[in-house]
C-alpha cells in the first residue's frame, strides 16, 4: 500500500451514471488484478474504495458508478485536478490459478476489475471467455474493450435488449477451467450454484472504514473463520465463502 497524490488525466462518462477516470502517479504498489484504491475527497471524512480496472507503470484506470454524494462530487472533477489515494489495497485475482480456458463473469459495476485480469490471462496465452451481465442496453459498457483485447465476449441483459436475454448464468459455456467473478451478491450466489465442481474466485463488496485491515469494519464470516474484505479480500476463493450463513 502506498499513499500518493494522483492527477486526473482522463475522465468521461461511459453510461448515464458510470464514469471512467484515469489517474496518473505512482502505481508501484499495485501487484494483482482485482485490487482496489481508496480515494479521499475534499469535504468527506472517509475514503471511497474503488476497484482498479486497469493499470500500467504510470496510470491507474478506475470505473465507478455514482451512488451517493461522494461519487457525485467525484463525477464533477476535471482533468488536471488531483486526488489523494491509498493504492494497491487488498488481495486480488490469482492469475496462476486460471487453467487453460478461464471464464470471467461480471455484473454491472462488477465488470471493471475483470479487465486487467483478462489482459493478464490473454498475455499468458489463455483462452478467455467473458460474460458481462447488465439490466438493459443503456447500461452496457466495456464489451468492445474486452473484445479488442481478444477475449470471447458474451453480453446478457435482463430485458433481452442486447445479447442473451436473462442472467449471466443463462450464458455459461459447456466447459471452462476456472471462474473469476465480480458483481452483486445475488449474481455471485447463483453463479456459485451453477459452477459447482469448478474452482473459482469471487470479488466481494462491503462498506469499509479504513480499507487496509485495521478497523474490522468489513469483516465477513467464512468457512475458515472471520476475514476482512479489504485486506484478506476483496477476492476470495469461492469455496471458502459461507453461502449458508
Amino acid at each position, binding site marked *: 500500500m502506498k499513499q500518493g497524490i494522483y492527477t486526473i488525466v482522463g475522465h468521461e462518462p461511459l453510461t448515464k451514471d458510470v464514469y471512467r477516470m484515469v489517474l496518473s502517479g505512482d502505481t508501484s504498489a499495485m501487484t494483482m488484478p482485482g485490487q482496489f484504491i481508496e480515494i479521499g475527497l475534499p469535504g*468527506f471524512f*472517509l475514503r471511497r474504495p474503488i476497484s482498479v480496472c486497469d493499470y500500467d507503470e504510470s496510470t491507474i484506470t478506475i470505473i465507478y458508478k455514482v451512488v451517493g454524494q461522494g461519487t457525485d462530487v467525484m463525477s464533477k472533477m476535471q482533468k488536471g485536478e488531483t486526488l489523494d489515494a491509498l493504492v494497491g489495497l487488498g488481495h486480488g485475482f490469482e492469475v496462476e490459478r486460471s487453467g487453460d480456458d478461464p471464464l470471467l463473469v461480471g455484473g454491472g459495476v462488477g465488470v471493471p476489475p475483470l479487465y486487467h485480469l483478462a489482459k493478464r490471462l490473454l498475455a499468458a496465452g489463455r483462452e478467455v471467455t467473458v460474460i458481462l451481465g447488465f439490466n438493459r442496453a443503456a447500461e452496457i459498457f466495456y464489451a468492445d474493450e474486452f473484445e479488442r483485447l481478444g477475449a470471447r465476449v458474451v453480453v446478457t441483459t435482463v430485458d433481452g435488449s442486447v445479447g442473451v436475454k436473462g442472467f449471466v448464468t443463462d450464458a455459461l459455456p459447456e466447459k471452462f477451467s476456472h471462474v473469476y467473478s465480480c458483481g452483486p451478491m445475488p449474481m455471485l450466489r447463483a453463479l456459485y450454484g451453477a459452477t459447482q465442481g469448478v474452482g473459482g474466485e469471487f470479488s466481494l463488496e*462491503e*462498506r469499509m*472504514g479504513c480499507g487496509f485491515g*485495521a478497523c474490522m*469494519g*468489513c469483516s465477513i464470516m467464512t468457512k475458515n473463520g472471520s476475514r476482512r474484505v479489504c485486506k484478506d479480500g476483496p477476492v476470495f476463493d469461492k469455496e471458502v465463502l459461507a453461502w449458508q450463513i
Partner: protein
Amino acid sequence: MADLKVTLSGLELDNPIIPASGTFGYGYEFAELYDINILGSFSFKGTTLEPRFGNPTPRIAETPSGMINAVGMQNPGIDRVISEELPRLKKCFHKKVVANIGGFSVEEYAECCARIDREEQVGIIEVNVSCPNVHNGCMSFGTDPLGISAVTKAVKAVTKKPVYVKLSPNVTDIVPLAAAAAEAGADGISLINTLLGMRIDLRTKKPVIANRMGGFSGSAILPVALRMVYQVYEAVKLPIIGMGGVTSARDVIEMMLAGATAVEVGAANLIDPWACPKILAELPAVMEQYGITSLRDIIGGAH
C-alpha cells in the same frame, strides 16, 4: 529542543501519542507501514474473555467530519491475544502496550485482567466500560457509577498494573462516573469513547448500519471530548488519557491543555494510516509556534 516526554502512572512515554483501541488492530498492519516504536504506546483492539465475531455488516457509516462504527468488539479472545498476538507484536514493538479490555460481567472483566496481568509487554490496562456496540455489556457498566465502581474494584484486586477506566460520553454528567472510578481505586481515566449515533439511508429508508446505531467518532466530536476531559480534570486528581476527534498536533496540544497527560488518536488512523507519524513530525514546530518547550508543562494549562 522540544521535550515531548510524559509520564502515565510511572510509565514514561517518549511522547503522548497513543493510537486508540479499535483503530490500530494489534499493531502489525501499521508496523508494515512505519516503525511503530516512534509512538508513545498504542492501545490494542478491545479484547474480551471469549473470541467474538462482532456485529453483522454494514458496520460502518460516514457522517459530516466523522464516522459511525458498529464493529461490536470483534476480537480473538484473551487467550489467543496472549499466545499469538502479543508474541507477534513483540517482534515489531519494543515498548509497553496499553491493553484494552472489555467484558459482559464483573467476573469476566476481572478474569481477563488477571490473565493479562502476567504479560510484561502490557504497561497499562485500559478497562473499556463504554463500548456502545454490544448488548448487555460494556456501556451499561459505563453509564452507572455503581457498575464502574464494581468493575474497577474487581480489576484492581487482580492486577498490579495501572488501571485506566475508559468512560462513555453517553451520559448527562461525566463527573460522577469519573469520581466513581477514582474512588474505586482507578489509576487513571481514559475518555471519551464514541458517542452513540445513527445514519439513515434515503434509498432504503432504513438505518445504514445493520445494528441500527453505532459509535460516532472523528474530528466532529473533538469539542465534546475536550469539554469532558476539562470537566474530569477539574473533578478528579488522576492522570487522563484524552481522546476523541484528534487529527493534528494542534488538537493534541488542545487536549493536553484541557487536562490530558497523553492523547489517543483514533479515527484519524483509518483515513490516513500515517496520521500518527505526521502528528509526531509536526508537534515540535507547533509547540515552538506557541512557545511550548515541554509538553509536561501544559497539562491542564487551560484551567
